[in-house]
């Protein structure tokens, strides 16, 4: 039976910069084992919302709860503990260029676990193998392709067996095959490790393929204008904006 326990909850969250409001009064819940998609057009605040969820920015109003703890109001130690149990894959992979792939993946393990050096090496090989990069341990980020960098970034994000992994535009800059491979990998990780994935994307094929839940941010009204399974939103679009977005610009919306 699927566990539908809430793992992230946003309550009346308003975000922006200074006086400029990007999105207001956002309410949504991410359940355990979801692949939760943050959808919306360019400039609606998807990446800003991700920065909020990962603690890089603070909301102007409202609270974000992670596993029942008020992440927004928690002190820095509690926030740090929560973040250690989360993994993040940045748009470019954000690998440290002066380190090999093995050293990149080993870094969080050395920092936050008591594993022996041998076990760390074995775990690094396992994580790289999981993302299809077995044997690339001694390579530097500059020696691999963009898609491989993203996969290596994912291996690093998975190093500490996180409960939640955040993805910022995972398909950006990838060819369709690499993009599909990454989508399959994300689904595999979600199913086999039970990891909750929160994904910012506007790649239609990807969000319809992997998403199990999501929110749609609208730049015009500065609110969430749809929530639910992306495929359900495509079948029964609640408004014209969502319909246009999910059908790549078709305009014959009928309510």
């Amino acid at each position, binding site marked *: 039976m699927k566990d539908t326990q809430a793992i992230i909850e946003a309550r009346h969250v308003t975000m922006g910069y200074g006086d400029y409001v990007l999105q207001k009064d956002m309410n949504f819940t991410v359940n355990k084992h979801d692949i939760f998609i943050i959808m919306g057009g360019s400039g609606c605040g998807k990446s800003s919302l991700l920065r909020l969820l990962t603690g890089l920015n603070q909301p102007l109003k409202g609270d974000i709860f992670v596993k029942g703890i008020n992440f927004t109001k928690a002190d820095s130690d509690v926030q740090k503990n929560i973040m250690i149990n989360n993994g993040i894959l940045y748009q470019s992979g954000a690998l440290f*260029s*002066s380190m090999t792939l093995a050293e990149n993946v080993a870094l969080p393990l050395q920092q936050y*676990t*008591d*594993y*022996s050096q*041998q*076990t760390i090496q*074995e*775990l690094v090989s*396992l*994580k790289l*193998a*999981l993302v*299809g*990069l*077995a*044997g*690339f341990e*001694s*390579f530097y*980020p*500059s020696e691999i392709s963009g898609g*491989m960098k993203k996969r290596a970034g994912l291996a690093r994000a998975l190093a500490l*067996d996180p409960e939640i992994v955040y993805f910022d535009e995972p398909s950006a800059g990838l060819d369709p095959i690499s993009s599909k*491979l990454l989508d399959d*990998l994300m689904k*595999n990780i979600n*199913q*086999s*490790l*039970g990891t909750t994935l929160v994904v910012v994307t506007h790649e239609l094929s990807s969000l319809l393929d992997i998403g199990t839940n999501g929110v749609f941010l609208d730049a015009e009204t500065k609110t969430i204008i749809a929530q639910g399974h992306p495929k359900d939103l495509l079948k029964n679009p609640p408004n014209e904006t969502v319909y246009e977005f999910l059908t790549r610009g078709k305009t014959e919306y009928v309510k």
Partner: protein
Amino acid sequence: MNMSFEQKQSQLVVNLTGSFERADNPSMKEALFRLAWDVQTQRIVIHAQTLGTWDSSLVVVLYTLKKIALERGILFQSSTLPKQLNSLLDLALTVDRKPPQRNDETPDFLEVLGTIGINTCQAIGRGLIFIRDVMGALGRFFTKRVVMRSVDFWTELDNCGPKAVLIVSLISFMVGLILAFVGAIQLKTFGAQIFVASLVTIGMIRIMGAIMVGIIMAGRTGASYAATIGTMQVNEELDALKTMGIPVTDFLILPRLVTLVIAMPILVLLADFMGMLGGAFVGVLLLDIPAGEYWKYAWEAFGLTNFLVGLFHGLVFGFVIGLCGCYYGVQCGRNADSVGIATTKAVVWSIVWMIVLTGLITYLCEVIGI
């Protein structure tokens, strides 16, 4: 680690019970893997009926065992493992891309020597081409055919001129002060403290002022040029300029180089004055030399030739710092590390070339008798 194992005839039986979270027992794992490699072992059987929660610390053991089994061509029986664990093992063992072969051989002495030689020749070639391009851009600048925005020129002039005044003033004042102190200790033994004024004046205006400003500007402005242009290289902004047909030398290098060449002699002038002020501070307040006497001796030591040689140094240093900063920025690689390397090289080579050229200018002055 709730794991036990035994070898039963040709079978290696591994029993997993209870929870596996952050479990680590290297010696136990080593013994298990040794048995898996044992020629007698023809089948690895996992019993995991009572397995509780687990994480990567268990997956890594099973992954290694399954890899050994695959490599040896023996059976790996894991039907009692949870479905997710088995699919995770399958995922880890799906090799979709083999790493390319790398040449890890250590090169011999001759090869290293040859590589250094080739790299040095290439670096000299790149440097000369860069200087040629800059000279071409300077030619276009003087004939007003250059692609340069005036706003860039004024912004750069502001960066390397007025914004550097405070730090140049402070350091030059301190250098004048130190020169006066050190000189005073020696001159006092002959009762000739008054010559501190001459010492500081000649020292500052002839060479120290220019060298101090050069070192400050190499660290402050040369480094900033290399970092800015290097980051633009990382962000492909230099590529964008090239594909638009806009010469990088005109658009990025010239405003920086020209403004620095203009600003440096003025900063040297300021440094000379502040250094003399620092010397006067020590002379008048600490060595009890009357202010009028001090300035009289300072003015006598102040030769126009010395002063102009100092300014000429400033002009040359401005050119050197601008060239080095921009050259290493343009030559920067395409990652964060490269920007750091470019910045370091810009500062180090600016200072090296400044010292080399100071030696050359001093020698030429000696030859022509000034």
